[in-house]
């Protein structure tokens, strides 16, 4: 059951032009940095990317946007990227904005083998246009379909050679959900260990969902909004 590949280039070698990809992460937190770099190197085009955000101008999915590799983005928030905005306003890029919980749950539904979900998010707004509305217990809900993605590309903290994964802190976010939802799931991890070394009680994503795993290198882990408290000499913080 060894799922280990050498590196990002091998992991993504068979992703074709026009594929639908899920990319894990929230902002720049928990994004698959190595695979994004490999996708940029490979230069495939016409991609549909399902990801909560679209990176920033010079990092994350922003790097793929700059190379005009993305045909369509499906995201909940895309506010940090000037090149994204330019392509959107000029019509080069198609964008579908959907509520964040809907995005997460459509991933979850795919991973749980359910074709659709009902959610109240977006009822009475333009998100509801063209969607089936059904009432349960006096409240209205929208029918939203499970995502159908060719590849899910995610980042975990630790993984083993069988593809079992553990995530760290808020870098978990969409990663375990997308891991479950891809037809082929590629996981890059900070630390890869032999099967048996991770405590089975602590596994977040069982290896059955993961097809390829590799140990990533050179993680930048860029911070979007560095916010701190200043150290004050007498020990009081402000």
């Amino acid at each position, binding site marked *: 059951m060894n799922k280990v590949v050498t590196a990002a280039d091998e992991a993504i070698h068979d992703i074709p032009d026009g594929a639908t990809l899920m990319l894990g992460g*929230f902002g720049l937190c928990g994004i698959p940095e190595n695979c994004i770099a490999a996708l940029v190197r490979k230069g495939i085009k016409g991609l549909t990317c399902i990801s909560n955000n679209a990176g920033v101008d010079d990092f994350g999915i922003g790097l793929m946007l700059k190379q005009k590799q993305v045909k369509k983005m499906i995201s909940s928030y895309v506010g940090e990227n000037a090149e994204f905005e330019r392509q959107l306003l000029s019509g080069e890029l198609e964008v579908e*904005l959907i*509520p*964040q919980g809907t995005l997460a749950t459509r*991933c979850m539904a795919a991973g749980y083998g359910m074709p659709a979900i009902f959610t109240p998010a977006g009822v009475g707004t333009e*998100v509801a246009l063209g969607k089936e509305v059904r009432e349960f217990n006096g409240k209205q809900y929208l029918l939203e379909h499970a995502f159908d993605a060719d590849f899910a590309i995610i980042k975990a903290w630790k993984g083993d050679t069988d593809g079992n994964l553990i995530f760290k802190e808020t*870098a978990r976010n969409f990663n*375990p959900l997308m891991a479950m939802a891809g037809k082929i799931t590629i996981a890059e991890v900070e630390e890869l260990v032999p099967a048996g070394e991770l405590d089975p009680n602590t596994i977040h994503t069982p290896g059955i969902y993961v097809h390829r795993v590799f140990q990533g290198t050179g993680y930048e882990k860029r911070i979007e*909004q560095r916010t701190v408290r200043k150290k004050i000499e007498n020990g009081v913080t402000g």
Partner: protein
Amino acid sequence: MSLTKEQIAQRIARELKDGYYVNLGIGIPTLVANYIPAGINVVLQSENGLLGMGPFPMEGEENPDLINAGKQTITTVPGSAFFDSAMSFGMIRAGKVDLTVLGAMEVSESGDIANWKIPGKMVKGMGGAMDLVASAKNIIVAMMHSNPKGESKLLPNCSLPLTGVKCVKKIVSDIAVLDVTDKGFRLLERAPGVTVDEIKAKTAGKLIVEGEIPEMVF
């Protein structure tokens, strides 16, 4: 005198009750965490996957794997828990989060809220706002009463694309505290030195004024 952003946050913090699970949006709502009254314990939820959000880290202790929904570096408090985005919105949808505080561009007299899109100008997206307003039991909006042009943001109907319908329960603006009722905005409190007439003039939607309206004290 209209309230500062800090005073709006301070006034909203008085709505917190012991044991509340609270989601604070980006901007003024984030400041509410600085004014949690003594003796009140609340747990802050950050919808990117954390319950038990703490203050910003000390300089040099920033952790890129630990951020809030505004992508700011944060810390955790004892008793915190991490989870994935589906569970995060699951607890929101299931009504486990007691209070949501968020900003708005417009609120209507029936409690509709618009805060995610200005057609032709701003296309950032709704993030988690639509999920939050569709499911939260109690929603307080922190906002300016008027836009920079002096036009009221408390309207009969929202002109911008909606985030949610009939969901806002209370508004704390820079000049007033108002409940959103079946019959319109009900004035509860005035900012120090702000008259009822000024609030009437700056509220385009239906405003209900009953009896003496007390002044906020800070």
